[in-house]
Structure formats: structure tokens, C-alpha cells
């Protein structure tokens, strides 16, 4: 019975992919928005989490306006999926300049262009992080943490789609202790989304002035391996048009106090992310329970 359900899900997903690949982009976006509206109606829990997170961040104090932002953020998530599936259509070398504006400091560009250097890029669930990963893979292969899907058939299909560009998924839970180090040792790019609840391995760092358990991975890898680290975001400026912005390299020298070093880096990353979110709060994934106190 379970297998039958998985096949049914897989069939539905294939249909969605087919429509996404064949329908005009504007129509696909309309369908995605409609689906997001349906989801919004059904998922009351996420609605409330999104609204409360926005109020807590101080970006909006009025519950009705906060709810409106959370709804647009739900639409954004649907757009992320559509854009990611269509990204190969508009990220080809011949058309890339029509769709992307890139703000990249010289020090980051130098690292990307150096075949002997790896890079850690830390980012959040803002705008379309998948497009940013796709663009940066023109320099070096990119590896990022992904959670395996419950349906193995869909998982396989998604992997095939991802392989259209040089992206390698790293399973979230894996016995291989060196999986991050291998990426850096291969002089590849390690892309890490650090803005989800980190649980036990997190460090409490202020996010919009409220402590949130923040993943230490990017900071520790930078401190231990001396691999260059920067923040990046991908802001949607129009239909299929994005601005990808990189921060300068974060230079954190080791003080001998591990926790203080990590804190300094994570504070810097959270500040960069907050600044990015303030640009357009409707492009952030507010439905995640980042604060759990």
C-alpha cells in the first residue's frame, strides 16, 4: 500500500514537472500561486508561525499586515520551486546577463576564480537560494546539505534535475564524518543555509534581537580549515530576474576562545541576513520555527 502511494505521488510529481516544463512561464507562476493559496488555506499552523515570526522580528507589528507578508512569503516559496525547475532555461551563458545582476567583491571573485581554493558560502532561505547555487556552480562544483525526501522515486527524480548543474547534495544525516571536509579538500564550494533551528549543535545568537539556535558549521569550518567564508543572497527583482549579492570575505582570526570566535562569525552572518530580509520581507521563509523558546 505504501509503495502504491509512493507511485501515485511520483506520478503526480511527474505531471507537475511536465506542466512546469511545457507551459509558458507566466502560466506556471499563476498555477504555483494558486497552489500556494490552497496550501495557505489548509496549513493554519504555518500561517500562525509565519505571522508570529514577522511580529517577533519587529518588521511589522500589526497582525493583519504581518499575515499579509506571511502569505506573500508563501507565494515566494511556490515561485522558488518553479524558478528552480526552470533555471536551466534562463541561466544559459547566452541569456544570463538578462536575468542576473551580480554584486561580488574582488576578494570573493578571486577565490572563485582560483582553482586551488575552496569557498564556504553561507546563506538563508531568502529570495531564490537555488538560483544563486546554480549561478555560482559555473566556477566550481557546489555541494550543499539536503534532506532526503520521504518518497525514494521523487528523490531520484529531483537528484537527476539537480545534476543539470554542478550541484552535489550532501545528506543531512550521514555517518561520514568527513563529508564537509571532503568538499573543501576538493577545492569545491560548500553552500550552507544556516538560518534554521540548529538544535543541540547550535549556538544561541541574536536574530532580529531574539536568541535563536544557529548552526555553527560554517563558522567552525572557517576557523579550523581557514577556508574563506562569505555571505550571499539572491534577491528577486522581477519575473525571472535576480540580484545576487556577496559580502566581502569574513576575516575572523582565531583568538583562542572558540566560543567567542564562533559568536563573532555567526553575529556577522545573522546581521547580513537581517539586512537582506529587510530589503523585502515577503521573500523570506517565515513559516519555519526559528525561535523555540
Amino acid at each position, binding site marked *: 500500500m505504501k509503495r502504491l502511494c509512493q507511485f501515485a505521488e511520483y506520478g503526480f510529481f511527474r505531471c507537475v514537472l511536465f506542466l512546469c516544463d511545457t507551459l509558458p512561464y507566466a502560466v506556471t507562476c499563476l498555477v504555483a500561486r494558486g497552489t500556494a493559496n490552497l496550501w495557505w488555506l489548509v496549513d493554519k499552523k504555518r500561517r500562525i508561525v509565519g505571522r508570529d515570526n514577522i511580529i517577533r522580528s519587529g518588521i511589522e507589528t500589526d497582525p493583519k499586515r504581518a499575515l499579509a507578508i506571511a502569505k506573500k512569503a508563501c507565494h515566494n516559496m511556490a515561485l522558488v520551486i518553479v524558478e528552480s525547475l526552470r533555471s536551466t532555461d534562463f541561466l544559459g551563458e547566452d541569456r544570463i546577463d538578462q536575468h542576473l545582476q551580480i554584486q561580488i567583491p574582488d576578494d570573493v571573485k578571486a577565490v572563485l576564480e582560483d582553482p586551488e581554493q575552496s569557498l564556504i558560502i553561507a546563506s538563508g532561505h531568502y529570495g531564490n537560494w537555488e538560483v544563486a547555487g546554480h549561478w555560482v556552480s559555473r566556477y566550481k562544483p557546489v555541494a550543499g546539505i539536503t534532506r532526503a525526501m520521504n518518497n525514494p522515486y521523487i528523490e531520484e527524480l529531483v537528484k537527476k534535475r539537480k545534476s543539470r548543474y554542478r550541484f552535489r547534495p550532501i545528506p543531512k544525516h550521514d555517518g561520514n564524518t568527513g563529508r564537509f571536509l571532503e568538499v573543501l579538500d576538493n577545492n569545491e564550494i560548500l553552500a550552507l543555509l544556516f538560518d534554521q533551528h540548529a538544535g*543541540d549543535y547550535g549556538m544561541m545568537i541574536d536574530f532580529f534581537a531574539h536568541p535563536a539556535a544557529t548552526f555553527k*558549521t560554517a563558522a567552525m569550518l572557517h576557523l*579550523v580549515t581557514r577556508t574563506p567564508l562569505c555571505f550571499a543572497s539572491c534577491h528577486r527583482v522581477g519575473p525571472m530576474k535576480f540580484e545576487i549579492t556577496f559580502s566581502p570575505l569574513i576575516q575572523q582570526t582565531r583568538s583562542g576562545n572558540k566560543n567567542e570566535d564562533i559568536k563573532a562569525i555567526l553575529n556577522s552572518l545573522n546581521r547580513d541576513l537581517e539586512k537582506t530580509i529587510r530589503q523585502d520581507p515577503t521573500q523570506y521563509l517565515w513559516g519555519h520555527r526559528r525561535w523555540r523558546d
Partner: protein
Amino acid sequence: MTDTDKQETILGQLRGILEESSTVEPDWDAFSTQSTIESLGLDSLTILDLLYDIEEVIGIHLEAKEVLNVTTVGEIIEMLIAKGA
């Protein structure tokens, strides 16, 4: 100092580091050069803490790639001695 003395000293230092940072409660009475990385509860994240602390406490920088295939505490100690600890 003989290699055996060095081994004992570093083993003690490593135990101190791990007692501070370990997220599990290993059997410290059984802690030895034969102890496996796995039994100490080290994963891809906590091993980074270990590498940072080794550099601060013992003063030796281990290249991350060097520890990729390490399976026991004894192998880490050998690496540290080879690097002048």
C-alpha cells in the same frame, strides 16, 4: 621524553579536550589509544571542535584532510607526534 611518555601526555590532553566538548558520555575508564572516533560520539560537526581545541591546547595544526580517514584516538596521537607534539 620517550614516545610512550609523549603518547600518555597527549592521551591525557585529548581526554581533557573531549570531556569538555563531547556531546555523549563515553566510558572514560576505557579511554585509550584504541578508542574509536565513533565510540566518542564525534560526527562531522563535533570533530571540528576537536580540531580547534587540539590546536589551542597542544599547539599543533592538523590539516582537516589528514583526519578524514582516522578511526582511532591512537592514529590522531601518531599524527600529532609526527608533527612535533
